């Protein structure tokens, strides 16, 4: 399967948008060669601000720019942006202004750098902020489409979570991101696997393997974590009766939690969550880590079987 880097696509798209929109400015904190904002800096040095290793200043400076009509895109690693949580809360979200946070190197796929650099709590943190919207693109096509959407359609704070590794290209080339709109990549009748980011490719593989257990699994991309496509979640909870969630993030306060909120409130069905289980990451090759933390393809398959078999428990309760 063709794999492409989300952050490189981000860097490419930034330049394209920068040519189109003179109000687009980019801020980075000494990681522009990794976040891929460097190319924008080369083409538009007067609109690129390397703030040094000073994330708090980077965020408040971006706030000051947005308050004056510019459109700042702020990039660093996910782990380092969270140190400015309060700046994001007060100066950006409370002001409700047009600052876009595009972070890279989120999740455990940072790999060898280890636990200190593997941010798996960010979706929860950012989703908790009023006025903030949270997007986790799954591939390069979706990354570009989200960027286009942000610059053309939005004027409020967004958090977009990208990763270091290349991911399989799963979306069609004409895919267009829509907020609060899930994408059904594969339909199915027995089980709904809600996944995003790196886990979407694994979910597709797992769905194929679940055929061996005679389970017909749907795979749904939940890139818009907040706002969430509640209607789609409920439709598939009702249609299949069994749910698995898969995210490269803590199972607390991320995709899994959001899906459970919807099902618990409106249509309770068995849900099994795949993700980091209240733990820090560790060093290792990124793709080894998925197995180490029970987040690999086979783990999703097992979760699917488990969710499918839990049906009887619920029937006896009712």
């Amino acid at each position: 399967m063709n794999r492409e880097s989300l952050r490189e696509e981000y860097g490419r798209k930034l330049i394209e948008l920068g040519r189109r929109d003179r109000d687009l400015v980019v801020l980075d904190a000494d990681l522009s060669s990794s976040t891929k904002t460097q190319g924008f800096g080369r083409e538009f040095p007067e609109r690129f601000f390397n703030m040094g290793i000073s994330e708090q200043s980077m965020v408040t400076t971006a706030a000051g720019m947005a308050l004056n009509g510019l459109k700042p895109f702020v990039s660093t690693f996910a782990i380092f942006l969270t140190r400015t949580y309060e700046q994001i809360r007060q100066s950006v979200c409370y002001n409700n202004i047009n600052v876009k946070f595009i972070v890279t190197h989120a999740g455990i796929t940072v790999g060898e750098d280890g636990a200190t650099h593997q941010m798996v709590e960010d979706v929860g943190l950012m989703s908790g902020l009023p006025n903030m919207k949270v997007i986790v693109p799954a591939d390069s096509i979706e990354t570009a489409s989200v960027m286009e959407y942000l610059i053309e359609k939005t004027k409020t704070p967004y958090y977009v979570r990208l990763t270091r590794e290349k991911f399989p290209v799963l979306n069609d080339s004409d895919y267009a991101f829509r907020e609060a709109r899930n994408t059904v990549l594969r339909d199915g009748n027995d089980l709904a696997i809600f996944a995003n980011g790196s886990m979407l490719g694994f979910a597709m593989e797992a769905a194929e393997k679940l055929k061996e257990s005679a389970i017909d699994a749907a795979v749904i991309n939940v890139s818009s974590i907040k706002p969430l496509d509640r209607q789609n979640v409920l439709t598939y909870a009702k249609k299949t009766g069994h749910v698995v969630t898969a995210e490269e993030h803590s199972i607390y306060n991320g995709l899994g939690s959001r899906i459970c909120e919807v099902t618990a409130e409106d249509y309770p069905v068995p849900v099994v969550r795949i993700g980091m289980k209240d733990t820090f990451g560790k060093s290792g090759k990124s793709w080894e880590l998925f197995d180490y933390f029970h987040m690999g393809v086979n783990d999703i398959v097992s979760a699917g079987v488990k969710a499918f078999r839990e049906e009887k428990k619920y029937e006896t309760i009712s």
Partner: protein
Amino acid sequence: MEFSCSSVGHSKDLDNKTLFKIAQNARSLVIKMVYKAKSGHPGGSLSIIDILTDLYFNEMKVDPMNPNLPTRDRLIMSKGHASPALYSLLALRGFFPQELLMDFRQINSKLEGHVHRGVPGVESSTGSLGQGLGIGVGSALSAKIKKEDYKTYVILGDGEIQEGSVWESMMAASKYKLNNLVAILDKNGVQLDGFTKDIMPMGNILEKVKAFGWDAMEFNGHNFNEIRGAIKFAKGSMDKPVFLIANTVKGKGVSYMENNPKYHGSPPASDEEYEMALNEIGARIYE
């Protein structure tokens, strides 16, 4: 005692006596606001009021009828707990009716306990210390990018500069040669828990800010001649941001509040204290 100062449409070069009257009027409004709300921060409001008075009535290009005019000068009240001072001056300058001040901190009011952007004339919500200078850097950079010649003023507290984030923004302002950015430090020497020299001494601030690449000077923040001199100094900067250190008195103008950490975040404790504060402020106008 009642004394009023109607809003002034466009004002320049007001004499010291007029400025002082406006400042004292703002002081009395501060006392009324926090006493009515039974909460709020009078000490740091009274220390910054003379400077704010000069800025809003003498220095800054602002139009109360068009608070979002692109060419306006910007003021970021980074020490957002001094909201009574800022709100009072904005009301006196005509951004909104003075009557609204008395709803400060009430459930149906826009006048939030800390500075709130929903209020006409307010550039950014503030209140969590250490963030306003960065916002000011962004504002000043925006002017450079858009080739506009407005100034950005940031009001900092001296307890506030204990926040490391302030010094991050100090570096950034210096790097980008923001000669259109003016930081004004309300150096009243008092923070919530006591005196700054005891809580976390900041040493020689003048030398520190110069070492961060800023032009800087000290002045008496209650003397209008010196305030004007400091702003003039700031406006003359060629290629550096300017840091103005205002030596001020916490609680200035109310004897029992002066230099008293208790009144950092507490209103007058009784009707007697309240009357005493208003009488002292009013009496000085006719000295």
